[in-house]
């Protein structure tokens, strides 16, 4: 009886799960259809799997270029956020004086500020930098610079919480052996705080990969677009040809799905850990 109940519950849950991701399935099947076939029955299976629309959209969106930009911005920003935030958080914990406390509280408090409150003045300021000869507007480097600023609060907060629970003894032993703080941090502390690094990396990759508003404001020229910006431009260009658009959407989702399938456990665990510590 119990087993029977379990089978029914499993079936119910599987159906629920499949229904839940059916929109992705609808995008997938319609990305192979031509216009007439699409409107005939949007739920039907395509008659043939031709990659025609994928090729066309790849060309129109300059997908490879855009994918490269997105990868570059996401990876470099994440790595820099991790390096800089973990270093800062460690120093703030180990020198817990008044200044450190103030700095830490400022990092945490600013996490509440919505991006919309900062976007206009930020663009003005970055415009000044650009005029002074430091390219910030319309440069991937500038976007990375801004990403670091926006990711800092969360990352410092997570590292701070974890480092507080790491005993000082090991670091003191290393210092007695003649290690500089630099060596102390990279050889001893950084390996210990790896779980938090994974969490920060996953949260930041999800955020940066999908970030739209900031890149759309900063990156003005076509060759520098990231995936979300290019998608928005692609949809804004003409009245939407849905079969083409479906192929475009599928293309943008493929990297995410691959990433998810590869690191599924880490992602779910990282997201939960990141949220729980808030």
């Amino acid at each position, binding site marked *: 009886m119990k087993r029977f109940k379990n089978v029914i519950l499993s079936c119910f*849950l*599987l159906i*629920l*799960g499949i229904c*839940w*991701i059916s*929109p*992705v399935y*609808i*995008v997938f099947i319609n990305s192979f259809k031509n216009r007439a076939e*699409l*409107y005939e*029955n*949007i739920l039907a299976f395509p008659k043939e799997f031709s990659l025609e629309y994928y090729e066309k959209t790849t060309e129109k969106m300059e997908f490879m270029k855009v994918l490269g930009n997105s990868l570059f911005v996401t990876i470099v920003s994440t790595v820099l956020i991790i390096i800089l935030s973990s*270093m*800062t958080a460690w*120093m*703030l914990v180990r*020198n817990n004086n008044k200044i450190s406390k103030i700095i830490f509280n*400022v*990092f945490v408090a600013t996490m*509440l*500020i*919505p991006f*919309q*409150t*900062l*976007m*206009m*003045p*930020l663009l*003005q*300021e970055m415009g000044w930098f650009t005029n002074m000869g430091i390219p910030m507007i319309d440069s991937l480097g500038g976007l990375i610079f*801004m990403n670091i*600023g926006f990711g*800092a*609060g969360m990352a*410092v907060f997570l590292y701070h919480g974890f480092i507080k629970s790491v005993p000082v003894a090991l670091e003191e032993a290393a210092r007695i052996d003649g290690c*500089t*703080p*630099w060596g102390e941090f990279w050889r001893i502390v950084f390996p210990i705080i790896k779980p938090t690094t994974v969490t920060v990396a996953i949260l930041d990759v999800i955020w940066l990969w*999908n970030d*739209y*508003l900031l890149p759309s404001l900063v990156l003005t020229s076509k060759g520098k677009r990231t995936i*979300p910006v290019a*998608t*928005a431009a692609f*949809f804004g260009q003409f009245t939407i040809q849905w079969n083409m658009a479906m192929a475009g*959407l599928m293309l943008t*989702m493929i990297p*995410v*799905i691959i990433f*998810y399938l590869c690191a599924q456990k880490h*992602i*779910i665990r990282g*997201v*939960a850990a990141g*949220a*729980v510590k*808030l």
Partner: protein
Amino acid sequence: MRSRYKMRWYLLFVLPLLLIFSSVVIVPFFMGIGYSFFSWDGLPLNPKIFVGFDNYIKLFSDVRFKDTAIRTILFMFCSVILINLIGICFALFVTSKLKCKNTIRMMLFMPYLIGGLILGYIWKFILGDGMAAIGEMVGNSSVFFNWLVNPKYSFIALIIVICWQMSGYVMVVYIAGLMNISEEVLEAATIDGAGYWQTLLRVKMPLLMPSFTICLFLSLSNCFKIYDINVSLTGGGPNNTTEMFAMNIYNEIFNKNNFGYGQAKAILFLLVVAVFTLIQVNITKKKEVES
């Protein structure tokens, strides 16, 4: 000597991030407060005219803005409740002892990874042209029509999409909370003769309060700041009837070129988000219990 050595290392570790952070967040924040007292159209050569609190006073007589604000708050309440309800149901489903629970958990969480903009476009197809096409096919146009041309249904569409995105996310947090409840407590409840529902309502729910605090906070601030889905799904239309707070600010600044006035809105936005989240965290924190 020793302290100067320490100081130098301190600066080396803290200063780089602090400089970047200040120039990206702190300086624009104060600049923003400044801009909100000026009237300016965004062109560098045009004069900025100091108007004091006029921008803020103007906010109260702006009808479109008032509608937007009320709509955003309504949207936030509806979606926060739905997201958390769905999330907790999912969490209860996938923490039962079934073999396929990991696969299902993975499926339910997936929309969160795809990102608001893309999600919006997917649903734009399904609820717009897709619905219309189905309606033609089955000959029923009372439910199956282009939802995105109707203000009311567009609003519902936004709620559907944000639920689709966020439910899996809060589910993951609730799962972590449920896993944290010790077996002993549940066993004790069973021994005392509590059934499934009694255990759920009297034991699990109170012990889940910390997860509620987090999930309500996350969903509340995310729903308030909704922008990507708004842009891609409805674009604010039809006729600005689904324009949310964040989008209204964007339009005021970058489309209407009212930089000062838009910035005043943005400052108000910050205050509203802060007030709502702080009230929520305070209320739910009080309800947390020790197990």
